[in-house]
């Protein structure tokens, strides 16, 4: 009790000193410097790196410019002093970071608390009033010590140096001392007497010092050197540590103590304050701070013996560091209470979210009523951003990513903003700029195609291009209609006109239903060269067959996770097979030994006419839990797809065509995760089984060979079969930011080539099975690989785009 008296005596002095002007500013508390602590230098930079890394991740996910503001907007601050930007930059050397630390206004209950309010905002107001560069000479003889009150009130003094003198240790401390950051004066700055007085007041009231003095020493050049001599505050040693969340709690206002109180009254007063504080502690919610950190701090307390201001600073830094590291960017230690008892109470404002606001902005940044249904955005937000949770920057980033993946907005900002009505509360503001709903795009290209005799002529110059139109976010529910038409020759678009029209309807079960099912209806056409009609090795040239598909597809996609999904729907299509000259053909052609061409090869369609129409059900389930470990993909991916004919179409096709793909990316070595750390070596095992029971037209036969089947062979070079099995293994070893790999693959028709009508595998003299092995190097998006085809034993170098698996 007696010890607490001494502290409170000191404190009473603190509290009775007139508040600095900025304290009177009722808005000050709102100038919450989120994330900034007094050691603003580090946190500042960490903040910036955080922003940097964030913008990096965002840049990867979208071209749209996005920003996550981790600091309150400057305009929110009532004066420039708290402006994070100017504060940070003005501080250069890492001073007080300008945040008005009146987090807890009047200070804590039992008196010994409260000083931190100043401690955390040591930067005095003068720091912000940009010192003018003109200064006056002191006009005194050089090398004399001048008391602060002896200085002239009309002069602007230039400070040549600032020295700290620790009276307890009886020596000058360097600028590296943790106290140095408390002072906003800078050598070289120009200050008036009033400013210096204010600075001294600030230091005196911050609670760090029992006693602090400021004196000047005149220099010959008219500048003065400043010496701040201080005695550090200390308290009784403690062995317990407690961290409480005082966010959203009303700050207890101390009753002004009458100077003419009797001792008894004083005792009464302190007791009541103590009671208040106890109640406060009880009311306070527990902290997120985990046990290990508690233990660590208790250890610090034990080792230290007496609780000193420096120790409290250390504790504060440790506690705040934990919060920063965990992403609780708005958490801040605001006070230490209960000093001079066995238990140190650390009061933290963690940054409780009181409100979540979604706002739409137009191009100029004005707030507008958005077209998008707010629920569409809300369902993308992690629940940790909802009121009642503690603001975490990672949750903010997650929200940013999720909203970005909607592809509805050109700019997304997630801002934590201090809640003015609710001290210690955070309002999460999400500001969105919507993309144009309707867009149309025309891209053109000219191509020169070989004319007669293989030489390009003027007539062979072809204008081609794509016309795309998009109507996004219909009814604000992210429904979209996208259409595109592509041709390589606008003069003759009937040659290869490709079109696609797709309507997507997300939130099929309602925008408030957690189920995420999307309906897609699309019209499409495509033209592909059939790999079924490809010759084996030694077969010169098999006349190509083009497979044109046009149809309608309607399916429902159910997203389980970002990568795993289940899609089911109906496909109706017309398949037309054409020969080189675009004539419909019913059979593949083959080159006779005599050199002639006969058109009695394997049938191309089920109907035998060259045109098939069919409707079938299609289901696809994809399980994908792959993730990136330092850039290397690791995990499992399984895909099962089944096309179930329902007997509707030419020749009443009834079939069950199924494929199962199993790919495992096995991490062979555990590595430390982090940016610029090397990825682990990975073994990829891959198996693909495809099979069909029932009607199987040649265009649906499974082909073997090709960059996505068995490398080292051409597309379809190994055969076209009813059932196939492909096995592959690849070992990836990281080398200097990329990786090299070795692979072996095998594809087998399981003897089912003959079960494809017309046996195209045999007609075009293919083996029906084959293996290959080789090595490769990944160069950005391109794979350069040397593959040896096991059937002929010859190797070749290939360049491929994209990934095999």
């Amino acid at each position, binding site marked *: 009790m007696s010890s607490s008296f001494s502290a409170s005596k000191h404190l009473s002095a603190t509290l009775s000193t007139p508040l600095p002007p900025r304290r009177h500013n009722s808005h000050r508390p709102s100038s919450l410097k989120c994330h900034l602590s007094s050691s603003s230098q580090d946190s500042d930079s960490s903040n910036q790196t955080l922003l940097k890394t964030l913008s990096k991740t965002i840049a990867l996910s979208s071209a749209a410019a996005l920003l996550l503001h981790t600091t309150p907007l400057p305009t929110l601050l009532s004066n420039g002093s708290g402006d994070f930007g100017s504060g940070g930059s003005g501080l250069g050397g890492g001073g007080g970071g300008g945040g008005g630390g009146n987090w807890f206004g009047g200070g804590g209950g039992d008196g010994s608390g409260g000083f931190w309010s100043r401690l955390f905002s040591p930067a005095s107001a003068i720091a912000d009033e940009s010192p003018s560069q003109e200064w006056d000479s002191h006009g005194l003889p050089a090398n004399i010590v001048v008391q602060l009150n002896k200085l002239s009130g009309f002069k602007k003094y230039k400070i040549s140096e600032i020295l700290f003198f620790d009276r307890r240790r009886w020596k000058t401390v360097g600028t590296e001392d943790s106290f140095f950051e408390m002072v906003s004066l800078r050598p070289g700055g120009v200050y008036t007497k009033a400013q210096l007085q204010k600075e001294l007041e600030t230091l005196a009231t911050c609670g760090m010092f029992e006693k602090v003095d400021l004196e000047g020493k005149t220099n010959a050049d008219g500048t003065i050197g400043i010496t701040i001599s201080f005695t550090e505050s200390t308290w009784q040693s403690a062995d317990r540590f407690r961290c409480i969340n005082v966010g959203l709690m009303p700050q207890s206002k101390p009753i002004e103590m009458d100077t003419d109180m009797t001792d008894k009254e004083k005792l009464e007063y302190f007791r009541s304050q103590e009671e208040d504080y106890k109640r406060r502690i009880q009311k306070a919610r527990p902290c*997120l701070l985990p046990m290990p950190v508690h233990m660590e701090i208790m250890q610090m307390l034990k080792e230290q013996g007496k609780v000193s201001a420096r120790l409290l600073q250390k504790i504060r830094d440790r506690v705040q560091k934990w919060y920063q590291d*965990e*992403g*609780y960017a708005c958490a801040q230690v605001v006070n230490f209470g209960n000093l001079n008892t066995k238990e140190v109470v650390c009061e933290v404002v963690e940054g409780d979210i009181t409100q979540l606001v979604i706002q739409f902005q137009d191009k100029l940044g004005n707030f507008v009523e958005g077209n998008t249904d707010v629920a569409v955005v809300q369902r993308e937000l*992690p629940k*940790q951003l909802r009121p009642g949770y*503690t603001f*975490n920057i*990672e*949750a903010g980033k997650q929200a940013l990513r999720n909203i970005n993946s909607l592809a509805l907005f050109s700019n997304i900002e997630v801002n934590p903003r201090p809640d003015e009505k609710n001290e210690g509360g955070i309002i999460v503001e999400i500001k969105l700029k919507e993309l144009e709903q309707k867009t149309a795009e025309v891209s053109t290209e000219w191509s020169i195609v070989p004319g007669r005799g293989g030489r390009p002529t003027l007539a062979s110059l072809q204008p081609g291009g794509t016309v795309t139109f998009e109507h996004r976010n219909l009814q604000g529910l992210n429904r979209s209609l996208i259409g595109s038409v592509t041709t390589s020759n606008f003069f003759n678009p009937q040659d290869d006109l490709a079109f696609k029209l797709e309507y997507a309807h997300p939130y099929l079960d309602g925008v408030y239903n957690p189920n995420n099912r999307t309906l897609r209806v699309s019209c499409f056409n495509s033209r592909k060269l059939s790999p079924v009609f490809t010759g084996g090795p030694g077969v010169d040239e098999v006349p190509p067959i083009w497979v044109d598909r046009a149809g309608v597809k309607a399916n429902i996609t159910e997203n*389980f*996770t970002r990568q*795993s999904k*289940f899609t089911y729907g109906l496909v109706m299509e017309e398949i037309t097979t054409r020969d080189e000259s675009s004539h419909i053909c019913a059979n593949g052609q083959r080159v*006779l*030994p005599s050199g002639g061409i*006969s058109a*009695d090869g394997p049938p191309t369609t*089920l109907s035998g006419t060259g045109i098939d129409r069919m409707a079938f059900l299609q*289901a696809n*389930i994809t*399980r994908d*839990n792959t993730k990136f470990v330092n850039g290397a993909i690791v995990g*499992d991916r*399984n895909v*099962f797809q*089944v096309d*179930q*004919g329902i007997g509707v179409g030419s020749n009443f096709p*009834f*079939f*069950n065509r*199924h494929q*199962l793909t199993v790919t495992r990316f096995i991490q062979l070595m555990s590595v430390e995760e982090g940016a610029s750390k090397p990825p682990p070596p990975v073994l990829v095992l891959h198996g693909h089984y495809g099979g069909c*029971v*029932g*009607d*199987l037209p040649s265009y649906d036969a499974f082909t073997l060979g090709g960059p996505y089947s068995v490398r080292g062979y051409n597309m379809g070079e190994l055969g076209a079969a*009813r059932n196939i099995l492909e096995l592959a293994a690849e070992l990836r070893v990281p080398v200097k930011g990329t990786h090299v790999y070795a692979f072996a693959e095998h594809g087998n028709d399981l003897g089912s080539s*003959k*079960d*494809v*009508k017309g046996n195209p595998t*045999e*007609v075009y*003299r293919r083996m029906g099975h084959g293996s290959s092995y080789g090595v490769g190097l990944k160069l950005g998006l391109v794979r350069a690989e040397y593959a040896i085809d096991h059937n002929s034993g010859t190797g070749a170098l290939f360049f491929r785009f994209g990934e095999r698996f």
Partner: protein
Amino acid sequence: MGSQAIREWAGINTFAPATQTKLLELLGKLKQENVNTLTILVMGKGGVGKSSIVNSIIGERVVAISPFQSEGPRPVMVSRSRAGFTLNVIDTPGLIEGGYINNMALDIIKSFLLNKTIDVLLYVDRLDVYRVDNLDKLVAKAITDSFGKGIWSKALIALTHAQFSPPDGLPYDEFFSKRSEALLKVIRSGARLKKDDSQDSTIPVVLVENSARCNKNESDEKVLPNGTAWISWLVQTITEVALNRSESIHVDKKLIDGPNPNQSGKLWIPLIFALQYFFVMKPIEGFIKNDIANESRPSWETFE
């Protein structure tokens, strides 16, 4: 060909009397067994003497022999009747063209044979070849693929150019047995005949010498270097094969097209689909649920 009146088998008279007697005896034997028609399909690689054999059997020059060039691409059926017995011999073009099976020739043969019954397959190759190669296998495979494995129980192998002296003074019979053994082996593998298939019907091998300069014995029969009169031997073996218990091969549309792979298993599709749903899709869905449950979450997501 059906419309064409079947000519009398006059060529039989050109054979030596001993041979004639033998042949007539065999024909009688066939008639006893109620066999009034005998259709022999002659197949083999090009240039091994298929057409010559046909001519030798009929005893006339019914098929044009075209040495040094591939014969006509069409199969030819020669029919002769004698005493109410009809003998059909179908000569076919060579199956090999440019190192591969000539699929077109095979297709033509198949469509030619439509609705005919093959009683005997006469697979022809040369005796004076030391090695067997992949081509023999391919031919055997093509025949099996076209007519089914069953045809090999109605098959015999004729080795032409039998008037040939083996190298290095190897005894003639030993060379013959080695050659036929090797050929049988490759045919068996090409035709995918298993050991069990071959035990009840060992494919007989006969020797043939079509050359006009073929040695003759005292009764003017054409004989092989080991003294066997080969025409009688050939016809006798044909008769034996025709009369063995195996079914003759009737070539119908189904046989030519092969089993329609699009039809097989169709009935099972609903069941397959159900199995896929319950045993593939459901487990994968379970895996996904499991993944979601086991997902490692950042600490901020787990704090409440």
